[in-house]
């Protein structure tokens, strides 16, 4: 018979915490901070897989750590928000309810399963003024913190948070807040403790726009992001849109279904007769 080793509950918890913390520290970091016009979410991310996304009208989600795990949490959050919004009203979906659900979920996973989730997530809700903004940080063990206007997640988050703590100003303009976020993220991870300058393509940026009716979430990318990083303001209309931003026109039509009006005739033609331009 195999020998049963005794491990104290404290030891088990410590091991799990250490495991989760190591996993989170391997990934790149993210910061969330309030500014004059809303809440800015910035993640260091060179892939097209997203760490920041929209949950509901005034609520956004940011995460660091293991992608499959926080993606599952994000989907769960979107589903829960849409279900509450449909059953009650759009105004009844709140970040606090979501944060409560996340903390219960992560807490249960931490204490009941072999492997804790290696994630740290932020649920942000924009209000009418910076004082009414809500930022919740939920960690791998299900503990939740209500953050005062700014927060950093991921490996070396303490060092990043220190940069933010010194200079964060909730009355700052968007480009000032973005410059601070980029500088804070670049303050760690350089060779021999050097700072790094992060470029537009290394950052995933989104805002919850305080002044926007309905869905407040907007992704900032491309030219608008480059301009903002150059410390210049961008007109509100050019800031980018929610994820519903128009997909690129496709030609020829990627799929033809039975519902399409042009099923007959076209399918018969050999490829060389179609368009011909390609």
């Amino acid at each position, binding site marked *: 018979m195999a020998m049963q080793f005794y491990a104290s509950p404290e030891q088990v918890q410590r091991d799990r915490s250490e495991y989760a913390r190591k996993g989170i520290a391997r990934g790149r970091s993210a910061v969330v901070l309030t500014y004059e016009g809303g809440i800015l979410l910035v993640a260091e991310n060179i892939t097209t897989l997203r760490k920041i996304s*929209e949950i509901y009208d005034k609520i956004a989600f940011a995460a660091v750590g293991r992608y499959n795990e926080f993606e*599952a949490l994000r989907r769960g959050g979107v589903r829960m928000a849409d279900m509450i919004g*449909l059953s009650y009203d759009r105004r009844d979906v709140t970040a606090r309810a979501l944060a409560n659900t996340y903390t219960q979920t992560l807490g249960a996973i931490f204490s009941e399963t072999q492997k804790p989730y290696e994630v740290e997530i932020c649920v942000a809700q924009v209000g009418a003024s910076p004082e009414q903004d809500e930022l919740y940080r939920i960690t791998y063990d299900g503990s939740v913190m209500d953050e005062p206007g700014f927060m950093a997640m991921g490996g070396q988050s303490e060092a990043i948070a220190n940069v933010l703590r010194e200079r964060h100003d909730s009355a700052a303009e968007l480009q000032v807040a973005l410059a601070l976020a980029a500088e804070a993220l670049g303050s760690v991870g350089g060779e021999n403790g050097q700072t790094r300058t992060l470029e537009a393509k290394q950052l995933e940026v989104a805002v919850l726009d305080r002044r926007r009716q309905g869905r407040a979430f907007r992704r900032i990318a491309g030219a608008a992001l480059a301009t903002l990083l150059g410390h210049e303001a961008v007109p509100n209309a050019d800031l980018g849109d929610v994820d519903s931003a128009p997909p*690129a026109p496709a*030609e020829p039509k990627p799929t033809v279904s039975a*519902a*399409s009006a042009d099923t007959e005739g076209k399918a018969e033609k050999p490829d060389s007769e179609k368009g011909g331009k390609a």
Partner: protein
Amino acid sequence: MATGFDSSGRLPDFFTSTGTSSFTQFLSQTAPELLPGRRPLPPGLSADVAPHGTTIVAIATAEGVVMAGDRRATMGNLIASRDIKKVHPADSYSLIGIAGTAGIGIELIRLFQVELEHYEKIEGAMLSLDGKANRLAAMVRGNLGAAMQGLAVVPLFAGFDLSPADSGRAGRIFSFDVAGGLYEETGYEAIGSGSLFAKSALKKRYRAGVSTEDAIRLAVEALYDAADDDTATGGPDVTRKIYPVVMTATAAGTHRLSDEEITTVAEQVVQGRMENPGG
């Protein structure tokens, strides 16, 4: 709280499973009672228990589409509502109007709006216009049982196609039947009790490539003609200042005409009919 949450307040497994990007499919597994087609109905025909919405018209224009609906809901020979809104935005580039049992129709619109937004948020991309129409067809199909018992609802769907197969046809219109059949229409379409008259009016006046401004006028004229001959369709109510809901969907997104804009158009139409009642 909707079903599915256990007492601990944590997310049940099916919330975090990879599952589907469709909200209605998710609901059918977790909270089927929130779907209009899933409720048990008492046997027999229940056609006259709830108000009915009536005429909707949609017109394809050079820039996109225009959709307009009258403001009346009827219950048998009574007017149940004078100011119901039956045309709504489905998402940022498409419009939906409903005819038939008003309660189920409004619920269908709400559900369809969440369905499209949910997909956008989960997938980070918008559905194609054909994809949206197919989803709506599936939702109408789900209501077939209720439709057979008299609680039928038929939507009209139109939108600006962001990636059209044919660049000349950015504004597209889709009609449905109670069985969930999906038909793409050319030029214009009307649904509801007054649709016969509205379509006849449009048949004579519509020209392909009409401007949005002219199409708004055409739509209000068509609704006037429908109200002229169909008791269930409401005409412009000048005493109460209740005029049709008119929306457009173009490359700039959806837009609902303001009270001033629609008042101007409706008053012009009424003025024209003072001189020539036949239009």
